[in-house]
């Protein structure tokens, strides 16, 4: 069994990497490995995981901890779960590293640019969290890439009963007739929150391109009793001024804004009271909130691109067409802009039940993506590396 140092973003206020790191490291420990996690963003919060989490404020602290551990603890392998550009920084800083390097990352848009593909090629093994991303990596010439099918705990993410839904909606002050749209996404450009909010506004007022000006000019009133629950990071330096945007779209009274980092029970409750999950990201490496939504059998709408299209294919969810594509400076990746009109029509379809995705198939799909499966893929990768080293020794 190996000594594994795992480096990732472990912000306890919830990051996608946190949701991947904790269950996978727990599985690795149960398989007999010794694991220490270098927690980028970890502030010493109490936890009960069966491994250490060592605090590191930022990337350079993380590198310093990694370098110290390589001398003091002598790990056999480093597994680094971060964005590709961070892998680049880490591997440049530790060129003569005394341990094997396995990278876990999203490939959030197509195509994978050559410089990032070259970063992946330098690893002993690179693991991409979506089949879409894995294929993009292969197209770019990466041969050491494997799909890591990360999942969620479907025992925790169970389907709410009708009674639970009713009583939770009452406790949130919601009428039974209210149509609740839920979005869980960070307040950053790629998540395109403005599009979700526009879709919701157009849906509520039953009018395209709703704005406060238009509402006044045409004397528009809400046609639907609806609520928009948004779980996000309200005050983000590069994000939207969400409350001002809500004001502009005339949905101030309908929007309920929750700061990210809500506890699991509260988060599950918010999924339980919703009628539809909406994500209009321009690209996604995977989309953990989509998996959560599918697990609780909540009808899910997302942009028809990248990781989202993979998860919601075969009518497991409803996919919003995109009406514009551009190339983003971040990795030269394509960004897909959701068609507001189409998205609004999907919301209407869910509400009047004329369009319903197969939520049972969605749940079954998520149940197949267990952490044990993901850990087994990781374990086989570790074994492959170990066998490779043995073979080199005998040769």
């Amino acid at each position: 069994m190996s000594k594994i140092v795992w480096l990732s973003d472990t912000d306890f206020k919830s990051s996608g990497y946190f949701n991947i790191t904790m269950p996978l490291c727990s599985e690795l420990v149960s398989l007999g490995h010794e694991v220490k996690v270098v927690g980028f963003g970890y502030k010493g919060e109490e936890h009960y995981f069966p491994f250490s989490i060592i605090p590191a404020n930022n990337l350079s602290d993380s590198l310093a901890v990694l370098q110290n551990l390589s001398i003091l603890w002598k790990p056999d392998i480093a597994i680094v779960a971060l964005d590709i550009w961070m892998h680049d920084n880490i591997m440049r800083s530790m060129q003569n590293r005394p341990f094997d390097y396995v990278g876990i990352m999203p490939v959030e848009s197509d195509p994978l640019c050559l410089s990032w593909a070259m970063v992946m090629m330098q690893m002993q093994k690179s693991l991409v969290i979506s089949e879409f991303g894995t294929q993009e990596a292969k197209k770019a010439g990466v041969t050491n890439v494997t799909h890591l099918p990360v999942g969620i705990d479907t025992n925790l993410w169970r389907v709410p009963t009708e009674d639970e839904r009713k009583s939770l909606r009452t406790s949130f002050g919601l009428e039974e007739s209210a149509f609740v749209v839920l979005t869980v996404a960070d307040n950053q450009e790629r998540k395109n929150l403005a599009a979700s909010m526009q879709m919701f506004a157009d849906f509520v007022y039953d009018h395209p391109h709703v704005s406060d000006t238009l509402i006044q000019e045409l004397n528009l009133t809400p046609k639907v009793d609806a609520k928009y629950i948004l779980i996000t990071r309200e005050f983000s330096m590069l994000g939207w001024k969400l409350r001002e945007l809500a004001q502009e779209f005339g949905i101030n009274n309908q929007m309920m804004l929750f700061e990210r980092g809500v506890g699991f029970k509260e988060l599950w409750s918010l999924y339980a009271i919703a009628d539809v999950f909406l994500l209009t990201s321009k690209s996604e490496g995977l989309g953990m909130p989509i998996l959560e939504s599918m697990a609780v059998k909540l009808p899910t709408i997302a942009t028809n691109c990248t990781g989202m299209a993979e998860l919601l294919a075969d009518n497991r969810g409803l996919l919003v067409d995109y009406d514009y594509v551009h190339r983003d400076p971040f990795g030269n990746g394509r960004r897909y802009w959701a068609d507001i009109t189409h998205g609004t029509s999907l919301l209407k379809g869910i509400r009047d039940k004329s369009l319903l995705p197969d939520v049972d198939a969605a749940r079954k799909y998520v149940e197949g993506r267990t952490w044990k499966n993901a850990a087994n893929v990781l374990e086989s990768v570790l074994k492959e590396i170990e066998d490779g080293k043995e073979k080199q020794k005998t040769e």
Partner: protein
Amino acid sequence: MAKKSKKRNKNIQPPRIVNRDMLDKARGSSLLDIIIPVFKRIDLLKQCLAAIPEAADGIAYDIIIVDNGTPREDCEQFYSTLDNFKGITILRNKENIGFPKACNQGVKRKNAPLILLLNSDVILQPKSILGMVSKLDDPTVGVVGLKLLFPDNVGELNAKIRPAKCIQHIGMHTDIHADFKHIMVGWHEDNPRTQNWVDPYAITGACLMTRRSLWNKVGGLFEGYGHGTYEDVDFCLCIRELGLRVVLEHNTFGYHYTGATAETYKIQFPMIMNKMTFMSRWGAKLNYTEWMAL
């Protein structure tokens, strides 16, 4: 035949194992001097003193209270009740001379082979002193600390930073910036992750036990830290330089209000200045240790 010259062994000899019963019976004197610096908060001092007999569980001890300028009207009545107690000495300073100087002053007053520095806001639990003394039976150990928890009811102190019955102290370690930190503060005592009992890099002076021989060798607490902070870590590092261990007694524990006097009377400590002093003394010799303990 020429006499063999006996070369003096200039190295420190490991201290002899202290046989408590033998010492108590043969010498009829205390095994342990407990030094308690005090500045106001006589209410907490009363609780602190009341808990000591059960904590000692038969160990012979003397108490030296070093009062750092508590106004007479706040303490006279209580101190007068202690006059008739054998084994309690009160040293009165006209002003607050700070924690390191007060401790050094108190230690010099008596001569027991073991010394316990104890904050007046620490309430020792039964057998905790016995537990700490037992750790010093190991000759490789130079300093013993004690697991400390926040108490159940902190009165008018800020309860948000003192979660009831959660960990206040199970050792100090250095982070990647070589800053000393208490690890797992606020964690639940029964959390399995807190049971990884590696030797701490340093322990808090709120409850610190050592041998008088080592205290004298090191020269006590470094008084360059003024009113206090860093003197406990400094002392622990001095002990480590002698090749001895710093350990934590974790089978028993104490309750620590933590900074009760400082918070009540808004006393500030020269943290930045003391950190600079500390780093000038130890900066080149520090190791990175928190990775082992977490």
